[in-house]
């Protein structure tokens, strides 16, 4: 029962809890920020698992992403403030069942599978980052670049779709 385990459990619970809050709050910004903190908890879990670079990256990335999400929430939701306590869900029973089944299946796999011995030797953060860098620009150069390219195309596509057509007023 190492400190790592305790903290992992704590932050895991935090992440899940914030995940639940996301869908239970009526205020949209709150749910966005909840999601943000959930992702941050995940980032902290990465730090706990000595994946320092990933953790920092996750925390940084998620902060910005979720704030953008927040602005979108405000833009599109009918009652962003959540004042009217509107019921924004449907087919609750089915999704509950689905979530339940997914959870149970995953847990079953986790608890039943034999994962083999735990690895003890963890490379230092700097070394990890160096290895990651070398991996990214070495063996997985192609995958990394294509990922980068995909993000670019996604950005262009999203912008294209979002930009109002020039001739909106045209017949």
């Amino acid at each position: 029962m190492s400190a790592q385990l305790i903290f992992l459990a704590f932050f895991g619970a935090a992440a899940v809890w914030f995940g639940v809050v996301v869908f239970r709050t009526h205020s949209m910004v709150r749910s966005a920020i909840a999601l943000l903190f959930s992702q941050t908890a995940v980032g902290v879990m990465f730090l706990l698992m000595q994946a320092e670079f990933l953790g920092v990256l996750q925390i940084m990335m998620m902060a910005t992403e979720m704030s953008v999400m927040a602005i979108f929430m405000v833009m599109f939701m009918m009652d962003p403030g959540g004042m009217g306590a509107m019921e924004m869900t449907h087919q609750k029973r089915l999704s509950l069942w689905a979530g339940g089944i997914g959870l149970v299946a995953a847990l079953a796999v986790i608890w039943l599978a034999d994962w083999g011995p735990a690895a003890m030797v963890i490379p230092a953060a700097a070394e990890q980052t160096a290895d990651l860098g070398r991996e990214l620009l070495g063996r997985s150069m192609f995958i990394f670049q294509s990922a980068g390219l995909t993000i670019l195309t996604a950005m262009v596509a999203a912008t294209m779709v979002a930009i109002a057509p020039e001739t909106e007023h045209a017949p």
Partner: protein
Amino acid sequence: MTMLALTLLAPLLAAGAILALRRALGLLVLTGAGLGLIGAAGLFLGAAGGDPVTATLPFLPSFPVLLLASPLTATLSLMVATVAAMVLVYGIGYMAKDPERPRFFATMLFFIAAMQLLVLAGDWITLLAAWEMIGFSSYLLIGFWHSRAGVAEAATRAFLYTRSADLGLYIGAFVLIGAAGTSEISATLNTTGTPALIAGLLLLIAAMGKSAQVPLQDWLMRAMAGPTPVSALLHSATLVAAGAILLIRSAPMLPGGALLAIGLVGGATAVIAGLIALAERDLKRLLAASTASQYGLMLVAVGAGAPVAALLHLIAHAAIKSSLFLGAGIFQHDRDSTDLAALAGAGRARPGIFAGFAIAALALAGIPPLAGFYSKDAIIAAALQSPAAPWLLPLTLAGSLLTGAYMGRAMRALWSGPAPQSARSRIPLMAAGMMVLVLLAAGMGPGFATLEHLLDGALPEAAPIVPILGLVAGVSGLALGWLIAPARLLGPLMGPAQNGFRIAGGMDGLVARPARAIASACAAFEARLLAAQIGMIRGIGLGIARLVERSDAALYAFSLWIGRQNLHLGNRARWTDTNRIDAAIFGLVARVIAAGGRARRLQSGFIHRELALTFAGIALVTGVLLAAPYFL
């Protein structure tokens, strides 16, 4: 060789020219006949020198055409040529007013050429060919006035009689050729034994046909329907002589039996023909019957073993009978009929012509200074000496008696009777032709001795009794003929003699009528057969028809039934189709649509619903993947 060509080709070319030019007939005829005569004379002189003139023309590979001018054939050729010339001269006058003279003269010249070919033939094939040609031309000439009633029928009858007899010649010739291996006549003559006997009898049959011997003598009387020159040439000297010539040439080969047969046939014909001649009411028919009788005598001579005697008589008879016929022709011109009753007194109207007629008649009867006497004596001598004397001699004597009788009757008929008012038309050509022949008939007697020497045939030594017998027979015949009417002379024989001694209806009755009866019977039978067949067919047809009709009815009923069944089937099919199949199909369709509807509900368009479905799918897939190892 040129002489041969001349005798054969001159008449032929003349005939061609006449047909082509159709004018200057008299000139052409005379040149043709004249040249033929000159040729024949040349041949005769050549042959008389002892060495025969021969020519061979290529024909079939192993059967060349041989032409032989031996003394025998040369004399015959000369005889034919002279008679032909004189008859043609007579003919020009006789046919003066006939519209179809070119056809007449052409046919006559064609006949002369054919006769010369027959006489001069050296081999059997040529002889056969010539034999056919003269038969054919005789048919044409007899039927010359084909538009007159009975003429065509007479021509056909003559043709049929001779043709059926010719069969004998064909088979006989072929038997001889078969036996000898070559068609040359002289070579075949030394065959002996049964082929010789058979050939002899067959040749006899041919001779009987051609020379009008009993029982085939009837066609000669009917042949008188032709113009008189035809009768004079063909039915006295040439065509009828062919039979005798055939037997004379083949005499050396004939065995005893054949000779006896020939003799008997000749004798019988001589007697019967004589009786028929005596009983005839028509002058030309009388002369025809006499011709048959004379040839009977010739056959007796051949049968008696003296062919030379027969030859001599043949030559004499040729001249005598042709002149008699020409005289009859003149009388016919005057009285336009040849019936003895009609001709009564005709002789008195033309004393010159009657004188010639009388001389010829006497010559035929056998009065000494004339030719007939010498030839008849030879025959009587031969008959006397022949082994079958007891049979042949009385027949010969009876024959010569009857000859005298009917000649006397003829002269009496012509002479007695009222003297007609004779419109004496000028008949120069006819008189000239007749007079030459009469002179020949009279003067030929003494010539026989040289002829006999030429033919170096052994003429039988005439016992002193022979001339006496001959003379007695001739004179008594004449007296009987002149004085007693034939009716009383013949007595009971008058009826049958007049109708030609038809035994059981004669040739018509024996042959024609049975043949026609058989034919009609066959026709009837065939008709009945046909009727039976048709009946059967009709019966079958009707049966089939009824059968078909019944089956058709059955078929119709069956088809109706089938129709009903089809309808029934159709209805039931439609019922099942609508109620069962369509229902099933539409049911299926409905179910499919329903399923489709349910499936569509699945595609709600709700994103969250589809997300749920996605999750379900993923869950299923992972489940399968995880579970798979345990099961596979």
